[in-house]
């Protein structure tokens, strides 16, 4: 990979992390001293994706806004990497009228039709719609692809298996991405399945599958490139599982008392790892790092300011948008 490609991956990862740190800050800011999930500027459940940046950055580097992404309840990293409007996404998380869903959806329900992005709070349920988007792309004779994301916990859900089967049958241009962060809330991977790799499961449906073991953004980029090229060429679906890292709790407020691997977690943070790698190869230096970080902060703080300055929805409009008007 060329230097610019590497730096682009790094920059995306920095933007995602900067965003998640800012949401973390805003989420908890007014929930002190006693944590109340319903209080504050950003109430409700909050699932942050810190540690999983390599997956989104590596996959989405191959996509354009014409391609579709269906993400999970932990959607921000894919939303950002796929180019979802950051201001309107943030406004949605803050429940404002300028949000992607005018405050109706919230952080697990982000829809940006401009880049064919959606996500869902119901486990594995983003897989089936991706098939339909791929079908639409295929019918229209385009080379567009749909990327469907789940966690490894979701790979035990029926919709996951039905989707792999149907995509294979119809040779749909879909890339299935599994983020294996070892945990489905408190249930470790070892307590939820006997297969060691979801790439093995892909084989069961006649789909090529690869597992990227080390949360390396370049390895994800490589594997995703092959899968997406295949899909664009009309050669059908494939699956990529990335062994990634849930750096923080399942959701904010999760004390993670169940978690046995916490001691080693900070050392596995992919961001300093990649940064060091790029410094060692001479692609990155202090000035560049500072530049990327400053740009990311500026972008993210602008989005948060936009959200905070936007009005809250008028209660009188609560019943709008149940149906589309002809």
């Amino acid at each position: 990979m060329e230097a610019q490609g590497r730096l682009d991956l790094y920059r995306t990862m920095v933007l995602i992390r900067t965003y998640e740190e800012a949401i973390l800050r805003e989420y908890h800011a007014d929930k002190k001293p006693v944590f109340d999930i319903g209080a504050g500027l950003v109430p409700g459940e909050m699932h942050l994706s810190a540690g999983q940046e390599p997956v989104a950055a590596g996959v989405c580097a191959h996509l354009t806004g014409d391609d579709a992404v269906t993400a999970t309840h932990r959607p921000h990293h894919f939303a950002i990497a796929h180019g979802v409007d950051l201001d309107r996404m943030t406004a949605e998380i803050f429940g404002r009228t300028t949000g992607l869903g005018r405050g109706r959806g919230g952080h697990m329900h982000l829809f940006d039709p401009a880049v064919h992005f959606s996500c869902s709070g119901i486990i594995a349920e983003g897989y089936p719609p991706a098939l339909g988007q791929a079908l639409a792309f295929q019918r229209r004779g385009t080379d567009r692809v749909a990327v469907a994301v789940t966690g490894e916990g979701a790979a035990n859900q029926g919709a996951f298996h039905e989707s792999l089967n149907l995509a294979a049958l119809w040779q749909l241009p879909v890339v299935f991405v599994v983020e294996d962060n070892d945990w489905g809330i408190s249930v470790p991977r070892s307590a939820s399945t006997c297969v060691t790799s979801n790439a093995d499961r892909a084989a069961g449906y006649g789909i090529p599958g690869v597992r990227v073991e080390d949360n390396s953004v370049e390895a994800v980029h490589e594997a995703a490139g092959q899968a997406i090229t295949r899909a664009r060429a009309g050669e059908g679906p494939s699956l990529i599982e990335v062994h990634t890292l849930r750096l923080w709790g399942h959701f904010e407020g999760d004390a993670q008392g169940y978690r046995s691997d916490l001691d080693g977690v900070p050392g596995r943070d992919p961001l300093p790892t990649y940064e060091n790698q790029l410094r060692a190869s001479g692609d990155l230096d202090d000035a560049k790092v500072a530049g990327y970080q400053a740009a990311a902060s500026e972008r993210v703080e602008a989005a948060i300011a936009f959200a905070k300055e936007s009005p809250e929805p008028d209660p009188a409009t609560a019943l709008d948008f149940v149906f589309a008007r002809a």
Partner: protein
Amino acid sequence: MTLTEPSAPAGRKLSTAKAMVEAIAQEMDRDERVFVLGEDVGSYGGIFSSTTGLLDRFGPRRVLDTPISETAFIGAAIGAAVEGLRPVVELMFVDFFGVCMDQIYNHMAKIHYESGGNVSVPMVLTAAVGGGYSDGAQHSQCLWGTFAHLPGMKVVVPSNPADAKGLMTSAIRDDNPVVYLFHKGVMGLPWMAKNRRSIGPVPEGDHEVPIGKANVVRQGSDVTVVTLSLSVHHALDVADELAGQGVDCEVVDLRSLVPLDTDTILDSVGKTGRLLVVDEDYLSFGLSGEVIARVVERDPALLRAPAARVAVPDVPIPYARPLEYAVLPTPARIRQAVLDLVGA
């Protein structure tokens, strides 16, 4: 059956969550056939603390964390129940029923009937319900009306700690499938705004609340407010407030949708002549219509004024707080409906 009214004096106070766990633990002690399964019911202790401590106490053979495979593990509970075990299976949020509804309503709920009464399915399906904390359209629903609409399952919804224990005990001992729905807002969780009655007295030892018996939680003469779950507390608060304005509300906590205690509702409406149904489920085709229909079917003359209802209008639960509170059955909406009913 020991019928203990939860209003019976009791010294100690528990949260609804702890009361639920106590009931399950006591039944597990009493009956080797009882076991618990579901997502995060083990070391996490249930996302809403509905199984806290059970794994430590009873071990992994009787408290089983499951994969995210609701169709499989709820179906497995059905099979185990058919073979004589007594599973308590948790579907974390009721909103997730879509991925496993076939097992629930085509299997759990129908086997007894289809077998001509020869097979019973003695299981409890628990799930968290309710909104009010901006968890959005896929994590805030009540949906009890949906389960109640489909024949073959009892549906219970406790509003307070004592009932949570008593209804759980009855549900586990019942030979039928019982859907047991607990509102997050009454669990007494440390990380959620607490209703002050979510921690209350709970009888020690054996405590059953019969399934199908509503509780008149406040006597009154002007208006009957029929409701359940968190809305009971809103109704009681409104009743206290309106008492100062000369409006005397009777509040009926249904405790169960199936069976529905029609007699208690009729007795109350016979006394007050006015009926308000408050329901945190959707308005149309649900509990509120059912309650009113039963009154009107029996005797429309019982009503001195048209019956009224406060429910979630037919819209997905919005995320943003001002929108969510515009559609929830808030005390303000309940108060206004009562005042309209008495013509104040």
